[in-house]
């Protein structure tokens, strides 16, 4: 048999499996999108999706009283905690296999997920503007050196060094191969700096955290921005995210704070728009950057005056700079929901502005389509 044939064979089975996974995800996409659990399962480049149906069921033992647990080896008294996740135990021995009630979890890369989302929502691909060749410097472990922090000590290299020294100095006895490293034998992992192409797109998320935005509203914002993020990331090589929260004043925060902060007090949306526009002005040159701004609020602004300030900032500084400005209005029992009306009457069919109203989690999917269908 030739290599080419061999590869083709498993690739067919592999493709078939991925197709099944994709099919399952597509069937349940609306459910996944509206529930927050996908967000919680996010790893660095992928999400894990529990998929019980894809396993092959058999008559096997469950885990009632006796079934749970197993036999292990090591120190410790009765009652001591033993390390390790029982579900990981199935790795090497069959003994561990009945330990955990393990659902099959399928890992899907964010890219693939974005692709499925794109196909399902019929999203067009984005034509990026500007071509940036900016580079950042990243550290990468490459070799060894003689000094370094103990946490980076390479045990194997250290022992090899010691062996070499002992053989050279004639203190090594192959009948009794004992190797004792000394200070000079120690070797540490070292790194070198490597250039990496930098991101060329930025998403600026803004959220109203005034008293009227409750946990449920924030959850919607969280889920929606996860999906927007996932999609935009699939369209650009690198992407930056910035987060702004505001009530009567605005400030930039990190991602965790963005989703967890709840403040009380009034709402002046203009504060956020002003900060956003400053941010763009200072750091993101519209010539080279693809800029996305999303603002989520319950639509309750402090005053008519402030709203007109907002409109002014949008018209004069934001719209000329951004690829798209998205405004998502989350329905809350306390908000008047006036702001979206103001925007619509002021800008009508301004193509850079996309407004979307989200009443409940089930609307998230449609809202995402709304935001992203322009392909800008």
């Amino acid at each position, binding site marked *: *048999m030739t*290599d080419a044939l*061999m*590869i083709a064979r*498993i690739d*067919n*089975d*592999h*493709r*078939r*499996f*991925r197709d099944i996974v994709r099919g399952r995800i597509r069937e349940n996409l609306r459910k996944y999108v509206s529930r927050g659990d996908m967000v919680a399962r996010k790893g660095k480049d992928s999400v894990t999706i529990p998929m*019980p149906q*894809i396993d*092959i*069921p*058999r*008559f*096997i*033992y*469950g885990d*009632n009283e*006796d*079934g*749970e*647990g*197993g*036999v*292990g*080896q*090591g*120190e*410790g*008294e*009765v009652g*001591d*905690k*033993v*390390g*390790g*996740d*029982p579900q*990981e135990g*199935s*790795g*090497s*021995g*069959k*003994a*561990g296999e*009945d*330990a955990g*009630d393990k659902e099959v979890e399928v*890992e899907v890369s964010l890219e693939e997920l974005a692709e499925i989302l794109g196909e399902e929502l019929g999203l067009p691909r984005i034509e990026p503007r500007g071509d940036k060749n900016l580079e950042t410097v990243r550290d990468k472990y490459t070799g060894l050196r003689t000094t370094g922090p103990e946490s980076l000590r390479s045990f*194997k290299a250290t*022992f*090899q060094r010691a*062996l070499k020294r002992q*053989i050279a100095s004639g203190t090594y006895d192959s009948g009794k191969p004992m*190797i004792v490293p000394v200070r000079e034998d120690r070797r540490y992992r070292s790194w070198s700096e490597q250039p990496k192409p930098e991101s060329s797109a930025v998403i600026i998320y803004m959220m109203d955290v005034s008293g009227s935005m409750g946990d449920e509203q924030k959850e919607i914002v969280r889920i929606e921005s996860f999906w927007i993020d996932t999609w935009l990331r699939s369209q650009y090589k690198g992407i930056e995210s910035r987060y702004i929260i505001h009530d009567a004043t605005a400030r930039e925060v990190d991602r965790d704070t963005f989703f967890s902060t709840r403040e009380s007090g009034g709402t002046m949306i203009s504060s956020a728009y002003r900060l956003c526009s400053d941010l763009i002005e200072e750091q993101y040159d519209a010539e080279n950057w693809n800029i996305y701004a999303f603002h989520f609020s319950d639509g309750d602004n402090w005053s008519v005056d402030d709203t007109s300030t907002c409109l002014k900032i949008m018209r004069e500084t934001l719209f000329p700079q951004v690829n798209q400005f998205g405004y998502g209005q989350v329905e809350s029992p306390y908000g008047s929901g006036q702001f979206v009306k103001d925007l619509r009457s002021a800008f009508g069919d301004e193509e850079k502005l996309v407004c979307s109203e989200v009443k409940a989690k089930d609307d998230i999917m449609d809202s995402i389509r709304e935001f992203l269908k322009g392909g800008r």
Partner: protein
Amino acid sequence: MPPVSWSTTPELAELQEEIQGYASGYGLDFFTTIFEVIDYRQICEIAAYGGFPVRYPHWRFGMEYDRLIKSYSYGLSKIYELVINTDPCYAYLLDGNRWVDQKLVMAHVYGHCDFFKNNSYFSHTNRKMIDGMANHAVRVRRHMDRVGVNRVEEFIDVCASLDNLIDPWCKYRESLPSQAPGAEGEGGGDDADEELAKLRSGKNYLESYINPPEFLESQRKKNEDEAARMKRIPPHPERDILAFLLTHAPLEPWEVDVLSIIREEAYYFLPQMQTKIMNEGWATYWHSKIMTAKALKDDEIVDYADVASGVTSMGPTQLNPYKIGVELYRDIEDRWNKGQFGPEWERCARLDEKESWDKQLGLGRDRIFEVRKLYNDVNFIDEFFTEDFCRRQKFFMFAKNRRSGDLQIASREFAQIKQKMLHQLTNAGQPFIFAVDANYMNRGELLLAHRHEGVDLKLNYARETLKNVEKVWRRPVSILTVIDDKPKRIRYDGREIGMSDETAAADYVL
């Protein structure tokens, strides 16, 4: 000694010759072994196919491949060695491995090859299984061409779900004389008397003493029951449910072929499940022996120690078959060298005497070769996992703390630990399921029964599996089991699944 066979590079061929020489020198006895050097994708592919270059098309191999490739690229695990039970024995070396790794793998492989060839549980396996698997692939593809990929794939899904419903003793049973009805009454004389186990008295007045009427009556009843049972299908509870379905289920010819392929492959892989600890332990014993005593060069010792300790490392909550296997063989060797066995040793209650017990018998090496021939994991552990060994190796039993959800050391009692281990190994960790009645309730329904041994079936899986049984049987199917100490019957009629209490004591002796 079999000739050294083709290898991909002259250097590796030379190395193979060297290692094979050591292996033969120690008395290992193996099929001709062929090494092939492949890259990581290929090794994952072959591993996903259960060690074979060609299998029938199915997505679950793709799923396994996906898992292997990912866990490799995340650095979670790496396949070092892959060898299959065939004659000649094929083994794979990973391209780009260090020289010392290739050495170690070769030494390890010769241990496996010896085990495949000599362990009695492998004696029934088809040693030409590479061809067998390739033939299966051709047959399945042909069915796919004829009736459609999806139909065949769906049926494979169904069959794969049942592939643990086989009888480990089936191969041995077939070689016994058939016990079909009517086989016994041949010796002439009075058939009726003989069937009742009536003794010849010769004297009329002794008749009622020698053949008491109550006894005759109970014999008659027993025979009637037996006769009634013989009319039932199956006459005795049947563990080889796959064979049972092949014979009795209304399958189309292509379905019969697919199901019989799944069954044949399940039997082929069975001994590997039954001897995981013994087989890995044996290979580990030999790579360790060959490497440390013969093959290792000084400059390789650190790399070797690194890999070898990884292979036998044991996490607190997982049994590493390599580790426990190799330690047991070493313990057996040591005990038989010193004569630490037999009634005298068992009776000795003095610790100091036991510790210095050495009769200089030197039987260790012979004994471990014998053990590798005759035992499987269950009786290996049952016989050689001693209290001393358990204590020395610091085994414990762990369980989940209901309140905190943490895993805790639950016991260091030898009896409990051994019990737990044996339970996990018995029937290769699978529950005992029997087909007991093909005409249940006189309606052509299939009744299965689970012999409950303290652990319930995983319910959601049991329901789904039952649905798959129905897809083969094409009439309603039920399974008798025990859930939370109550006898239950789960039934699937093709539309919905139902569960009821099973009040009538089952008259099926499992």
